[in-house]
């Protein structure tokens, strides 16, 4: 499987999160393998194309971020729209997860680390 929504900007990975991808078996491992192969130090999980998320989908995204951290790839989330933010308030968010308004801010933050 090729993680097609992955792009490299300023030496960092940006994943345009597609919720249906998360349900595919092997997606997470394939993503991890690609990012390790690319040798990136950080990854932005962009939710700018996402309008709604269920609890389990949000947990899948935060777990993805946690897994990347374990691989030494600092990961952050960006592009959460107002309505999505209100919905996510009710779901568990790991305290260490950083979130940013847009990809540029997220990339700036990752580049500073």
């Amino acid at each position: 499987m090729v993680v097609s929504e992955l792009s490299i900007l300023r030496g960092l990975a940006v994943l345009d999160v597609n919720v249906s991808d998360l349900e595919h078996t092997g997606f997470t491992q394939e993503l991890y393998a690609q990012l390790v192969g690319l040798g990136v130090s950080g990854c932005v999980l962009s939710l700018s194309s996402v309008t709604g998320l269920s609890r389990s989908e949000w947990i899948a995204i935060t777990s993805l971020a946690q897994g990347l951290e374990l691989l030494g790839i600092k990961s952050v989330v960006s592009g959460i729209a107002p309505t999505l933010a209100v919905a996510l308030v009710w779901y568990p968010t790991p305290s260490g997860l950083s979130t940013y308004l847009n990809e540029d801010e997220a990339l700036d933050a990752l580049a500073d680390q």
Partner: protein
Amino acid sequence: MSDERGPSAQGRITDRDLLKQRDSEIEAQRGQIESLQHSIEAAKFELPLLRISTHILMVPIVGAMDSLRSQRVMEDVLENIRRAGTKVVVIDISGVNVVDSSVASHLIMMGAASKLMGSTTIISGISPGMASNIVKLGIDTGQTETTNTVEDALKRAYNHVGKKLVDA
């Protein structure tokens, strides 16, 4: 030759026509009244969003606060963060008479939602009574900063954007 019975059938205005005309006038008036009511309702919830600096927004809330109004504050503030890239939102509630559990929950929820959007919310004007209530209600304020005065809130806000507020 003129018709002594009055206007011709074509030009005659019947009672039915008059009723129709009246109905449409009433309908138009009803529309105007509803429009005015909407405007009055909207004005009641109108909130000033004061841009203190490029990245700092201040929202002073005065008067009665209910869950509907706090919901409106949340929507306006989150939309402002999205549109203007606001980094810190200071919500001053020192002019609010009563903050019940529902309102407090909305404000705290807004703090959590704004954090997810990469912004920080500081609620200022928390009175001792409110602080006591919030603690008693067991509301988690972990995602939101709170201060007693607006001055403290602004100092913190400037700190967040890498600036310092100093006394003149």
